[in-house]
C-alpha cells in the first residue's frame, strides 16, 4: 500500500539563559559528536561487565519513547501514518540519520536506514566492521513501534540484519512483537 507522508514535525527549540540549557520540544537536549556515540556503542559492544548492547538499546528505547509519546499526545497525532512520519523526521532532524519505515503493523515491521550517524561515524573513526553496531537505532525503532501502536517499552524486539557499517547499501531491521 502506497503511503503519502505529509505531516511535518514541529520543533520548538529554546535556550534558557539562566541555566544555559537547550530544550527541544520541552526535553533537555545536548549536542554530541560521532566520537561520543561510537565510543558509547563500542563500550556497549565490548562490555564484559554486563549486557551492554541490551543496556544501550533499552536506554534509547526509554528515552525516545518518552519523546515520541509526549509529542503525539501534545500535538494530537493519532494516525499510524502521521506517527510514523513524525518518527522518521525526528530521527533526521536530530542528526541520527535517514530512516525509512517500509512497513509497520502491530505485530511486526521492516525498517531501513539510508544514512546513519552511528554507522557513518564508526566508519569515519575506525573503518568498516563485520557486525552490526547500531544498538541506539534498534532501541529507537522499538520505541517508534511502541509509540505508534500504544504499547509499553520492551514490547518489541529489533534485529539488524544488514548494516552500512558492514558495507551494505543500507541498514535493515526486522521488528517483531515480543
Amino acid at each position, binding site marked *: 500500500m502506497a503511503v503519502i507522508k505529509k505531516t511535518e514535525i514541529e*520543533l520548538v*527549540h529554546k*535556550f534558557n*539563559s539562566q*541555566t*544555559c*540549557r*537547550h530544550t*527541544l520540544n520541552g*526535553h*533537555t*537536549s*545536548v*549536542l*554530541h*559528536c*560521532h*566520537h*561520543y*556515540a561510537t*565510543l*558509547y556503542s563500542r*563500550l*556497549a559492544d565490548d*562490555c564484559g*561487565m*554486563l549486557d*551492554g548492547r541490551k*543496556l*544501550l538499546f*533499552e*536506554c*534509547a528505547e*526509554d*528515552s*525516545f519513547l*518518552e*519523546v515520541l509519546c509526549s509529542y503525539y499526545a501534545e500535538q494530537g497525532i493519532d494516525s499510524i501514518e502521521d506517527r510514523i512520519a513524525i518518527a522518521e523526521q525526528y*530521527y*533526521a*532532524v*536530530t*542528526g*541520527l*540519520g*535517514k*530512516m525509512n519505515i517500509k512497513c509497520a503493523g502491530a505485530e511486526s515491521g521492516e525498517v531501513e536506514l*539510508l*544514512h546513519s*550517524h552511528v554507522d*557513518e*561515524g564508526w566508519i*569515519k573513526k575506525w573503518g568498516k566492521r563485520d557486525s552490526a553496531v547500531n544498538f541506539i537505532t534498534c532501541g529507537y525503532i522499538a520505541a517508534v513501534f511502541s509509540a505508534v501502536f500504544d504499547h509499553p517499552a520492551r514490547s518489541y524486539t529489533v534485529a539488524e540484519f544488514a548494516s552500512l557499517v558492514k558495507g551494505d547499501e543500507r541498514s535493515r531491521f526486522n521488528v517483531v512483537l515480543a
Partner: protein
Amino acid sequence: MAIDRKKVIADMAKVEVLGNADGLIPGFNVFVTQLPAAFWNRFAERLTRQVSEDLLEAAEWLLVNAAHECGYHTGYGIITSEEWKAIVGPMVEKVPDDILHGAFAVFTAWGWAKSEVIELVPNERMVVRAYDYYESDVVSYGASTKFSAYMIRGVCAAFMDLAYGGDYDPTGETGLRTFQCQQTKGIECGDEYGEFVITRA
C-alpha cells in the same frame, strides 16, 4: 581576561543545528547529534549502578574516555571553525589562556554545562566550576555518594590536551590523554556546584 563570556554564550547559543537532507549534521569536522540528555544520562547511570564495585572505576573510565575523545576532536573542530573565528577569535589576546576561557563559554552555550575556568596554572593545572549541568539530573531528591559528571571530566581534560598537549593529532595517538580530570564536587552530591580539577596525566 579578554573573553566576553556573556557575548560568546549569547551568540553561540543561537547557532542552529538541524539534520540535513541525509539526516546528518556535519560540522566542526565531526558528525553531530542533538539528542535528549536523558538518553546519555540513563546509559551512564544504569551502567555505573549495575556493575560490581570492583568494576566501577573501569566503567567510569570508559565513560570519561568517550567524552575525552569527543572533547579533543570536536573541541579542535570548534576552535578552528568559522563560528569561532567570527565570534571568539577577535577577543583572543593571550594564547592559549583565552582560548580555554572561550572554549568553556562555548561549552556553556551549547548546553553541556554552565561552566567557567576559575583557576589556571599554564601547562600544569586548571580548576573548572559548573553551576548547572545535565549530568546532575540523575538525582532529583537527596544527594548521591557517587559523582556523575563523566562527560564534563572528559571534556575538561581534552581542552587542556588541546591547550598544552602539543599539536592536534587527528589520530589521537599523541596529544590526547596528556591531562586527566577528577571531579571534587557535584550538584548531584549536594554541593552548590560541580568542581573539576585537571592535572597532568
